[in-house]
């Protein structure tokens, strides 16, 4: 074929202006929030500042990390359709070390610092006189938290880097059939190792440690899956946004409506999966009506006698994370429409940010919902950071994994 491809992504000037502007806005929000809340002597006031940092950093870290999960899961399933835009997914996952360091610093300040409003269990005096926290202290203690957090973030970073390296190392040589078989096997093994780490972290222990321990007396077996579903559907939305953006600039010639259709299917399916877990967690607790479990929802939506401060956000997330994608992305034609899918991607990305907001914020501000503008500002800062790092990583490597043995399947992909 005499087709020419634009293999190198050149970062547009305006794009960099935007990403740096967003990062500046984020930094400004952090500073303002620090002055208004973070610097106050009252731990309950400054907790609101830390809750906002925790929510944003953890959310965006899990989202960019889920991009690597997307690669590994499709690799394990031998799903080749995502190969035409694989470099975009890889570039998004390259944000893990950057946001990982930020998240790590925030978590360490919360665990080892003096403010224990958010992580109540980290206060050793409180934990000693609390039967429930004492019982959990084998798992919920500062040492284990720190070690496991380091292992997790470093593991995501190194394994992700390994998977990206495997993909890039064949850019300049064509593989024979035998080499191709070995290459696929190698890819499969490393993806499988990543998935095992992912199962041990995002799908189980990490949401327990980082987020569920904010309500340290409460527990839910649905929680980790719920968090995973949130981050994965948001990652699919993020990938879609970048793919559409690059297509608009004239890159990714081989990615077409068929690929968009499948990305939108992922968003549709995992929005429903998220709702399934949302509802399973809610209904079981509602049905059993055990005080130690219902406390979580009473803090958010309230009970019969009073309404909780977060009920608006709580129900809004259900509408924009379930009803909107369910009804709007249901038909085939809307899943194949660039405009509709892009709009829904933005909505989903924001919706799950909002979901994390109601998961984290009640720990920092239990009595009233704080004004959201500065939290959105910090979120915008992280978006700018992701834009910046992703574009840097995209520009460094060819946009097409052109020697991958399965590439042809992706080019002729048909839904």
């Amino acid at each position, binding site marked *: 074929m005499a087709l020419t491809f634009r293999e190198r992504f050149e970062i547009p000037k305006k794009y960099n202006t935007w990403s740096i502007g967003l990062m500046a806005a984020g930094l400004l929000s952090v500073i303002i929030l620090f002055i208004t809340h973070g610097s106050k002597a009252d731990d309950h006031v400054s907790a609101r500042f830390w809750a906002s940092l925790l929510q944003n950093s953890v959310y965006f870290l899990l989202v960019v990390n889920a991009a690597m999960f997307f690669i590994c899961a499709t690799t394990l399933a031998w799903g080749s359709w995502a190969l035409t835009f694989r470099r975009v997914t890889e570039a998004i996952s390259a944000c893990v070390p950057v946001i990982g360091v930020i998240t790590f610093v925030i978590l360490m300040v919360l665990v080892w610092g003096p403010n224990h409003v958010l992580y109540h269990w980290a206060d050793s005096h409180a934990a000693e006189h609390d039967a429930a926290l004492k019982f959990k202290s084998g798992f919920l203690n500062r040492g284990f938290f720190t070690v496991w957090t380091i292992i997790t973030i470093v593991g995501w970073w190194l394994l992700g880097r390994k998977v990206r390296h495997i993909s890039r190392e064949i850019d300049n040589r064509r593989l024979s059939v035998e080499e191709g078989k070995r290459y696929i096997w190698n890819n499969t093994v490393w993806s499988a190792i990543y998935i095992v780490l992912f199962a041990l972290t995002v799908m189980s222990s990490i949401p327990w440690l980082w987020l569920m321990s904010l309500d340290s007396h409460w527990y839910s077996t649905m929680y980790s899956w719920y968090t995973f579903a949130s981050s994965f559907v948001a990652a699919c939305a993020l990938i879609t946004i970048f793919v559409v953006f690059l297509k608009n600039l004239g890159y990714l010639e081989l990615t077409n409506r068929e690929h968009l259709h499948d990305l939108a299917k992922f968003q549709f399916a995992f929005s429903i999966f998220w709702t399934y877990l949302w*509802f399973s967690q*809610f*209904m079981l607790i*509602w*049905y059993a*009506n055990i005080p130690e479990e219902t406390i979580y929802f009473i803090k958010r939506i309230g009970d019969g006698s009073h309404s909780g401060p977060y009920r608006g956000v709580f129900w809004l997330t259900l509408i924009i994370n379930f009803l909107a994608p369910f009804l709007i992305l*249901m*038909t*085939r034609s809307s899943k194949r429409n660039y405009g509709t899918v892009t709009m829904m991607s933005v909505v989903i990305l924001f919706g799950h940010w909002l979901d994390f907001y109601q998961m984290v914020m009640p720990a920092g501000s239990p009595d009233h919902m704080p004004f959201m503008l500065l939290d959105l500002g910090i979120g915008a800062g992280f978006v700018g950071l992701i834009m910046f790092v992703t574009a840097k990583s995209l520009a460094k490597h060819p946009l097409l994994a052109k020697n991958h043995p399965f590439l042809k399947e992706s080019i002729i992909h*048909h839904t």
Partner: protein
Amino acid sequence: MAEKKFVVASFDDEAVLFPAVKQVRRAGYKIHDVYTPMPVHGLDAALGLRDTSLHTAGFFYGLAGTCTALGFITWALTYDWPLNFGGKPFFALPAWIPITFEMTVLFSAVGMVLTFCYLCQLAPFVKKDHFHPRATDDLFVMAIECTDKTNEGEVSDFLNGLGAKEVNTQIKETGWWIGSYADDKKPFQKQVQAVS
């Protein structure tokens, strides 16, 4: 239904079939249908068939299921026979969601299967004419409907020129009829050649 005359061409290669479909449509002949042994990606688009509305029907079946489940449970548990389950309100919506979900799935699934069978005219004892027995095995069979103005010889030559392995003219029933293979001689009137 009626019996109609068809020019039937058999192809043994997808790579020949697709350009042939394109040429036949360009020449203005009316393709009755193309019968293939397996689903062929993109053939529906090449034939210019519109997307099926089956899923739209499925949505409304699902909606009907949702309404049936919610309506019946609400009627039964709040109006007809209110029961106190563990101090929950009579209108205990979260507890009904799983049943509502199941009914939605059941209605849409069963409804879509029945609609599919109706659209494809599939049912026990319903019989239809076939153009070529090897359409279920290894041949792609294209049937072109003849009108008053169609010159069969011209169509046959045209199809032969497009790479058809076998071209013939058949008179076939386009509709369906009820029968059983034991009694029904009609599809087997002619000796069917064994595939060698």
